């Protein structure tokens, strides 16, 4: 059951009181915000600070920035314009702070599996540390003030990434998503706003941030994630006994182990099938953790960055197939 949830993320949006929000901030202003936050973090608790890398976004080549998006460490919006933007990233990549994205500070904690409380706890501590050294824009009634009013209040977006192949195959996701909006939650493709779900990966997150405490929002999200997990589990039991589904799973692993050229979309689709086969017990010599790692490693930019060279799309498909054959051999 635990292999249905891939990861948990908690993000907090914060702004400095003394500067206009990023949409109204001059280049010098942006630099000052970056400096203030970086100094606050480094001069803060040394136990946390020593762990952070400081990355200026305009110093990265496009592949490196796209790879950060593929690893869910920054948003696609963040790399669309690299001027006056910086990233503070912990060595294990579980903590990231985007500076001058939509808000001055977008602090994010990623954890493996379903770990909402733990992730919030870390985000909360990091936020308190910054709050001690910076002046945040805060209003008693509206909470943390954000550039976009959709984030007012807690400024918190908590999300869990779920692998839902069985629910997707039984076409119930769209029906579920209608009901979720009534609960202040939203489910969408794992690659964020406006993307088609790939590899049956979905992101479930809270939508409402004002008038609900962080704890209540997280509790709410956890309950629904648990219900989705139960439903997915039941749907898996139903479909995985079918010979056709078992055949698809077996063939998927066969292709991944023998293909010489493979596209990103195909790789994700097949890996998703293999993941399903692992949880149903059909595939025993590959683990879900291995598949999760591969799902990121086969992403176009991450593949190139890991190989240390820029590749044409066709060469990338060849390298991807090689990687998959080696790792799944």
């Amino acid at each position, binding site marked *: 059951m635990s292999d249905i949830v891939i990861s948990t993320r908690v993000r907090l949006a914060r*702004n400095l*009181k003394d*500067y*206009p*929000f990023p*949409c*109204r901030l001059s280049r010098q202003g942006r630099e000052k915000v970056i400096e203030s936050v970086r100094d606050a973090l480094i001069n803060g608790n040394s136990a946390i600070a020593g762990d952070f890398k400081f990355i200026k976004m305009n110093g990265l080549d496009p592949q490196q920035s796209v790879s950060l998006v593929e690893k869910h460490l920054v948003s696609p919006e963040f790399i669309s314009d690299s001027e006056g933007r910086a990233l503070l990233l912990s060595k294990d990549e579980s903590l990231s702070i985007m500076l001058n994205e*939509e808000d001055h500070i977008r602090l994010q904690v990623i954890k493996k599996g379903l770990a909402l409380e733990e992730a919030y706890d870390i985000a*909360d501590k990091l*936020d308190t540390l910054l*709050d*001690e050294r910076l*002046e*945040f*824009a*805060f*209003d*008693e*009634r*509206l*909470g*943390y*003030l*954000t*550039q*976009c*009013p*959709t984030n*007012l*209040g*807690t400024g*918190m977006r908590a999300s869990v990434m779920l692998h839902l192949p069985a629910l997707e195959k039984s076409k119930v996701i769209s029906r579920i998503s209608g009901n979720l909006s009534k609960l202040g939650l939203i489910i969408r493709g794992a690659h964020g706003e406006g993307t088609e779900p790939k590899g049956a990966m979905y992101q479930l997150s809270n939508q*409402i*941030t*004002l*008038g*609900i*405490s*962080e704890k209540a929002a997280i509790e709410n999200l956890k309950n629904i994630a648990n219900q989705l997990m139960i439903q997915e589990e039941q749907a898996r039991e139903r479909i995985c006994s079918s010979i056709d589904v078992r055949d698809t799973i077996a063939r998927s692993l066969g292709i991944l182990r023998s293909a010489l050229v493979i596209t990103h979309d195909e790789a994700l689709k097949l890996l998703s099938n293999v993941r399903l086969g692992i949880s149903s017990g059909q595939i025993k010599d590959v683990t879900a953790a291995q598949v999760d790692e591969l799902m990121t490693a086969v992403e176009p930019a991450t593949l190139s960055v890991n190989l240390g060279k820029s590749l044409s799309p066709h060469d990338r498909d060849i390298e991807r197939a090689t990687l998959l054959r080696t790792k799944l051999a």
Partner: protein
Amino acid sequence: MRKCDKCGAQNATTHVKTIINGELTEYDLCSACAHKLGYTNVFSDMESDFSNLLGSFFGNVLPARTQSTRCEFCGTTYAEIANSGHVGCANCYTLFADRLNPSIVRIHGNAAHCGKHSKALEQEKAAEKEKPKQDTVKDLQEQLEKAVARQDFERAAELRDKIREMEGSK
């Protein structure tokens, strides 16, 4: 509840004020009659607009005459916020509070923040706590002036004693 002035059957939901040739007329209408007479809610089309378009959260609440007010801190006008869906700075939330509020209510419901507090607020509150004594004396003096003005000397004497007492204890 008041009944509709036109049909007399339904509960009135719309209050209409008209000034024609300087003469004020007021009446109450039910929603059906209001619609028939063309008095539809000026904000009624906002909800459908809101569902998808981020940029038009504020689109229909633009009062033409105050469009030019600029935030003194970041220079943003309300029109710019309405067009982009982005608020310019913390001060904009105070300056344009009246116009932003309906949109905030539409997004989050009529709610107040009930999560974590920034230390900034605690500091503000602590600062306010230090002031009340001066405020009270000032308040009492105002009350005293008013009492004298309405020739309520008994109350004025009370207030005078209170002020003396408070000033003495300083």
